[in-house]
């Protein structure tokens, strides 16, 4: 038996875990790199001169799933549309401030919005397949881009990535409309993936789906984040809690005098923090169902 004095002097070791191992683990966790993909600074969006969203600054990290939550009218859909310049399509929309993508100004004069939308794909609330076959839906993007080589492989890869291949491989020529809602949504995801994007933007991708299809989409998101960066707008807070690494809570700033309601970013943090210990009272009231 070692005497107590020398035992007390020895470093504490439990089941082979010593301080060096703990230090390494600590370093690994803290150095889990957050590579900034989008850097948003003082973003302000207005429609016909009326501000819809103001003063938004945040960073979106590569290979993370980032969720935007908040009550109706808080500007979260407006915001997600800024990431692939969808607001360009609305004549009265004006975007001020900066969004840097891989360090480059997304709204710079030399940037081609079509190229942006190829690299930053979008999936909408309601599945919107083209009135074409399953195959042609997925092949559409590559064909437009003139990628004619190995089209079958490309279509298969995209359908596999979207976890739809096994369900449709025997009926690729069937109409996309013959698929269920959940399958149609995964087809739309496959259609995005076929052009090899960098980012997937999802605007309430599961809100029109049943629980089983919703689970399929959520599982798919977990799979896809290995290769893609995903940004999702959702009304379903539990969905944000289940899938997102980071969560941004938006709210509405009401200006009674001018009768204006403008979206603002209230809190942005890791999802566990937002759902266990949010620091802003408005965020806490929203996630606990006391407001909104």
């Amino acid at each position, binding site marked *: 038996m070692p005497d107590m004095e020398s035992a007390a002097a020895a470093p504490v070791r439990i089941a082979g875990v010593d301080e060096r191992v703990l230090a390494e683990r600590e370093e690994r966790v803290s150095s889990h790199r957050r590579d900034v993909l989008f850097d948003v600074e003082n973003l302000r969006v207005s429609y016909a001169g009326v501000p819809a969203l103001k003063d938004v600054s945040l960073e979106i990290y590569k290979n993370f799933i980032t969720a935007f939550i908040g009550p109706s009218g808080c500007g979260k859909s407006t915001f997600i549309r800024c990431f692939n310049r969808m607001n360009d399509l609305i004549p009265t929309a004006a975007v001020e401030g900066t969004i840097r993508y891989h360090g480059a100004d997304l709204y710079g004069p030399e940037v081609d919005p079509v190229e942006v939308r190829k690299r930053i794909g979008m999936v909408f609330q309601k599945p919107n397949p083209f009135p074409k076959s399953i195959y042609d839906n997925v092949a559409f993007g590559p064909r437009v881009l003139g990628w004619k080589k190995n089209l079958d492989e490309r279509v298969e890869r995209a359908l596999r990535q979207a976890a739809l291949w096994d369900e449709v491989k025997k009926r690729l020529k069937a109409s996309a409309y013959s698929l269920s809602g959940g399958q149609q949504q995964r087809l739309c995801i496959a259609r995005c993936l076929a052009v090899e994007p960098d980012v997937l933007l999802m605007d309430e991708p599961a809100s029109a789906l049943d629980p089983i299809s919703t689970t399929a989409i959520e599982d798919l998101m977990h799979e896809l984040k290995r290769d893609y960066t995903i940004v999702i707008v959702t009304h379903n807070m*539990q969905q944000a*809690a289940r899938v997102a690494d980071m969560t941004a809570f938006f709210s509405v700033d009401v200006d009674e005098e001018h009768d204006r309601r403008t979206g603002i970013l209230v809190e942005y943090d890791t999802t566990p923090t937002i*759902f266990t*210990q949010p620091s802003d009272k408005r965020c*806490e009231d929203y996630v606990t*169902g*006391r407001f909104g």
Partner: protein
Amino acid sequence: MRVTFQEELDQLEATLQEEGELVLRALRGSLNALAQQDVELADEVIAFDDEVDDHYLGIEEGIQSLLARQTPVAVDLRLVLAVLHVNLHLERMADYCVTIAKLTKLVHDSPADETLMEAFEEMGGRAEQMIRVALDSFAERDLESAETLPELDELIDRANRRVVGHVLSLGSDQEKLEWGLRMIVVSRCLERIGDHAVDIGEQTAYFVTGEFREFTDASH
């Protein structure tokens, strides 16, 4: 506003506080039974534990149902998790009261020892005070008050050490040794009740701050 949900949370907390009151009654009963060597009262304390257990199970079931249906988050999640732990600590305290009552029955025909009885009354009184502080600080979300619990606990720990010293000084007579060992267990029960009160204080701190931490490290 989720009215039903809030009502359920309020109900959980109310039941928890009731359970705490029952534990205080059990503790007072066990201390009186010990001091007066009252076997009947000791039996009452033992039977009374069922009431504490009913509250304990009611809270467990309430939390299970609430987690399944309401998916609490943020402040609500912290409250539910804290109640879950506090519930267990209270139930364990009541079990220690039962142990004291059972030991009382075993030693009721032995002559009373003034020094020990005084020490137990002191420890018991401090344990009661700690339970009250623990319950009140949880109800009031009073972090400062919860943080006073380790200091109070230190006083019980000291008394516990005195009891052990006293028992050891009684000599090696077999009968006295057996009695003495049982008294050490009584002392240990009171000391553990103090520890559980500190643990409840830690749950208050978690609920208020969102951080898990021990008030004192294990070397104390």
